[in-house]
């Protein structure tokens, strides 16, 4: 299993080093520095040298590295690295060299807790926060009952929830966030359109509530009430560990005892009948070798009561562009030479509207006639109260011993960031 855990900065300096097993020396860090950090052409996230394997994940200016000396479970090791990153995020807000340096004592405590002898242990940020805190804890100050309670919870069947949660007002917020992945060919045919959905929940519920959650899942609806038109076909669902998987497997009911506070209840994938919120019609013509003419139209494809916000188009330009003259009626467009793109930002487009961008790029003449690769146009946006898959939350029922009333809120958001690509 995991023999050692390191964090390196960009220069290859060790910021954190923790050995979990006795089969390695601390100096193994030098090998990683030489083989990966100072190697400009690293083409695999796992490097094996002899019988030592280095798994690395890059985040901001850091390398998070796990080292193993056996035929390790690669998926587990990477999941562990990413889990560390998400715990660190929830503790310090951001994960970069500064945050690691400022919190190195806390990080040592964390890596000691979430992994023992190379086997990952409880890594729920919420539970960890109850006994690993930024202020130093005096063991004499905590009552033994308190710490037994913490530890029982950290190992229990509902390790994600404390038992004694109390709220005056019992509320649950459900956010359905859909990320649309699109690849549109230059001819305007959809090569790939699918939805990665996340259902995030913020549960502020007292006691140990049993929740039941219902979606317009086609498989459920078809079974119960035939002929309902607006059912959604979900290709696959993945759940937070609180969801009882065997119940879902037998009759697709989603029931769970939620962790307190914010968590990701489920993820799903849908590929059929994806409604694309934005339609982008590009027309890009290369005039000779010195000019490129752009006309790009964006149409919104949803009800006029809704609107797309924070729309950002990144329109690629050839590498030898000197100047781009943009004309836009909505938003702002600016040429960013460092990235070889024109960034067109539109704060808001209403449903049923259409906006146009036209530009004229001038190129320097180059001696090497390299064909322009024409990378795709990338579109980022957000549309509130709209789901590209058509998914709706049908109910969220909360059962608790004390039978309290609870208020539930549901929000929908469809967005794209870096995955909505149109070729031209």
């Amino acid at each position: 299993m995991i023999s050692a855990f390191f964090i390196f900065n960009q220069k290859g300096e060790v910021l954190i080093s923790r050995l979990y097993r006795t089969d390695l020396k601390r100096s193994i860090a030098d090998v990683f520095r030489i083989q990966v950090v100072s190697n400009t052409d690293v083409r695999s996230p796992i490097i094996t040298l002899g019988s030592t394997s280095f798994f690395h994940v890059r985040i901001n200016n850091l390398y998070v590295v796990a080292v193993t000396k056996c035929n390790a479970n690669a998926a587990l090791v990477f999941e562990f690295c990413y889990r560390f990153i998400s715990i660190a995020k929830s503790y310090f807000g951001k994960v970069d060299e500064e945050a690691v340096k400022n919190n190195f004592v806390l990080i040592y405590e964390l890596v000691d807790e979430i992994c023992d002898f190379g086997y990952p242990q409880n890594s729920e940020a919420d539970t960890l926060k109850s006994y690993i805190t930024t202020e130093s804890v005096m063991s004499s100050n905590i009552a033994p009952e308190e710490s037994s309670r913490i530890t029982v919870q950290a190992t229990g069947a509902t390790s994600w929830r404390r038992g004694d949660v109390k709220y005056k007002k019992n509320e649950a917020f459900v956010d359905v966030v859909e990320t649309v992945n699109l690849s549109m060919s230059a001819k305007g045919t959809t090569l790939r359109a699918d939805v990665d959905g996340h259902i995030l929940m913020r549960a502020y519920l007292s006691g140990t509530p049993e929740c039941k959650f219902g979606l317009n899942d086609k498989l459920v609806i078809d079974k119960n009430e035939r002929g309902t038109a607006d059912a959604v076909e979900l290709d696959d669902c993945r759940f937070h560990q609180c969801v009882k998987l065997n119940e879902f497997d037998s009759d697709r009911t989603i029931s769970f005892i939620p962790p307190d506070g914010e968590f990701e209840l489920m993820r799903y994938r849908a590929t059929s009948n994806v409604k694309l919120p934005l339609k982008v019609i590009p027309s890009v013509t290369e005039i000779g070798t010195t000019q490129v003419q752009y006309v790009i139209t964006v149409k919104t494809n949803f009800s006029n009561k809704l609107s797309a916000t924070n729309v950002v188009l990144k329109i690629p330009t050839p590498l030898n562009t000197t100047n781009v003259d943009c004309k836009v009626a909505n938003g702002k467009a600016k040429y960013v030479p460092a990235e070889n793109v024109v960034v067109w930002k539109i704060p808001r487009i209403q449903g049923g509207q259409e906006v146009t961008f036209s530009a004229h790029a001038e190129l320097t003449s180059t001696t090497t006639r390299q064909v322009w690769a024409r990378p795709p146009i990338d579109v980022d946006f957000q549309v509130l109260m709209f789901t590209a898959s058509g998914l709706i939350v049908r109910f969220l029922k909360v059962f608790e011993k004390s039978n309290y009333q609870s208020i539930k809120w549901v929000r929908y958001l469809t967005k794209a960031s870096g995955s909505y690509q149109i070729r031209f």
Partner: protein
Amino acid sequence: MSGFRGPPRKGENYELSADLNSEYREKRKDAIKKVIANMTVQKDVSGLFPDVLKNMQTDDLEQKKLVYLYLMNYAKTQPELVILAVNTFVKDTDDPNPLVRALAIRTMGMLRAEKILDYICDPLNKCLRDDNPYVRKTAALCVAKLYDLKPELVIENGFLETLQDMVADSNPMVVANTVAALSDIHAAAVLAGSSTDTFHITSTILNKLLVALNECSEWGRVEILSALARYETTDERESEHICERVVPQFQHANASVVLAAVKVIMIHMRHVKSENLNKQMIRKMAPPLVTLLSNPPEVQWVALRNVNLLLQKRPDLLQNEMRVFFCKYNDPLYVKVEKLDIMVRLAGEGNVDALLSELKEYASEVDVDFVRRSIKAIGQTAIKIDAAAERCVNVLLELIGTRVSYVVQEAVVVMKDIFRKYPSTYEGVIPTLCANLDELDEPEAKASLIWIIGEYARKIDNADELLGIFVDTFTEESYPVQLQTLTAVVKLFLQKPDGSQGLVQRVLNTATKDCDSPDVRDRAYIYWRLLSTDPGAAKAVVLAHRPPISLPRTTVSPQLLEELLGEVSSLASVYHKPEETFVGRGRIGIDTVQKKGVELADDRAAAQKALQTVAIGQQAENLLDFSDADGAEDGQQPSGLAATTMLTSTPAAANLLAGTSSNPLDDLVSIFGNASLSAPTVQPQSAALGGFGLGGAPSPLPPQTPSVLQAASPPTQQSGQEDLLGLF
């Protein structure tokens, strides 16, 4: 205490030492933090051991943890002093606070000092039976730690038995850690050469594991699933039962749980005979595998490598899912490359158009390596799907039209393979290829084009001119190009003898006199003798039909594939290599195996190497499997067929095919038996030489040995050869 060592007089450590002994709590704690910081950057702070140790007894948990961290690192270098810490440790394991108890037992297991180990057994025994599950789960792993350091202690104290009892613990997390500890001990025992099964999973344990599976944390599930994978079922019903209980885990958010579940299913499915159930399982497996692609790229890559393996076993797994493997522009290269491979695997007549337009798109991207692989994928698609070959060729022609140097060169290489699969089908393309002759500067592309020219010399009017260019620069070319030039010129001569006599003379002269590669020189001599002895036989040998190439369905041998599927999600399954190739026996240090590691470092290269080995194996298979149908097709004479069957059934023939015989002449004679004694000696010699020369491994062409003996029936045959055939 520090007196006898003599503390450093000045410098950072001296100051730290003073601070560690300060009367102010905060100052001492800050000093400990500094010590740890120095330790992290590998400065030597071992001299401060006694000073740090003094700060161990404290109510401040954070400080305690820091001191422990220091101890874990330096205990080994200061065995004498560690003893001083034992008391505090033992006392801590009695602390009312379970966090402190767990911390103490966790740390004690990590102190690599012989002396302290004897003191650990009593507290460990106590902690294994602690009321608090948090302490128990920590103690369980501590047993594995102890086994790693001193196995005798674990056995003497009966900790193994305790652990085996703990599998039935009421707390799922304790069960999970116990399973992890037992598996770890088992692995260590196996490595040490023990034959007893330290972690034998009985059907009672199995049921407990299945119960704990649904309740424990994600990491615990992975451990339990790995244990389930090891369980040997007694009957089919049991296998089915395990599969049914594991299938729900496909819906877990953690990719390693999903893959661990896939592993269990793949292993236990082997015993499930019901085809229906198998299909159902495969159907349930597909969507979660696709969902793994929405993970971060590193996890995606692990998933893709495993999907690649799974597809080799079950090509029907992701039948209609090719689109999800389309590359995104910003995917890392290693993900893209893997996706390409999977896309070709999933290609069928139904989706080939979509695939080709994708591949064409990729061929215009920036990364040269990726572009080349995309073009290769087009070639593989053409070879895989007969009906789409023409469309592939058209795409390749379009790509050649871009005149981007590396695109053209790769396309030429790919075209050669298409010709090898579909001989004489796309001759119309040849002029376009030849027009790009000047652009080629890579040996592989050159060799490919030369091969095409040689093969179709009859149809290319200026073939002699084109080959002449390469003959002129013969000595400057690399060996693969030289070998191809040589063969191509001979082919040209055999097809169009008038006008190319001079060229063939020139190339044979240069190759035999001015060339230092033994392969090139030997092959030149073979051709020369063949041509001078018997042009007819030469024609039969050199121009004979070769079986078309095909795409290997698996990249690893079937046995290895089964083994790797039993290790889904492990490093072995990611590298597509058995564990022994990269895990040194008995955990060898990095330096000793570094040499071996160099080839492994670039695993892609390694994968390619594996592919080549398989390709060679495949060719060898072609050679041996030489089907009757093929024989009937080419050898119009029944004798050809007879020759084939006879050949493969004679041991001497096997020798000849394998190219191991020292004297092919003898072998040939032995095949023909007594009857061959009457045959003129010259004839067998020429035939033997032919077989010998064409079996030459470095040639990219498939070995032709069998076709020689079987299709030796052109009208130009001389009487001697007829004699030879007449013998059958």
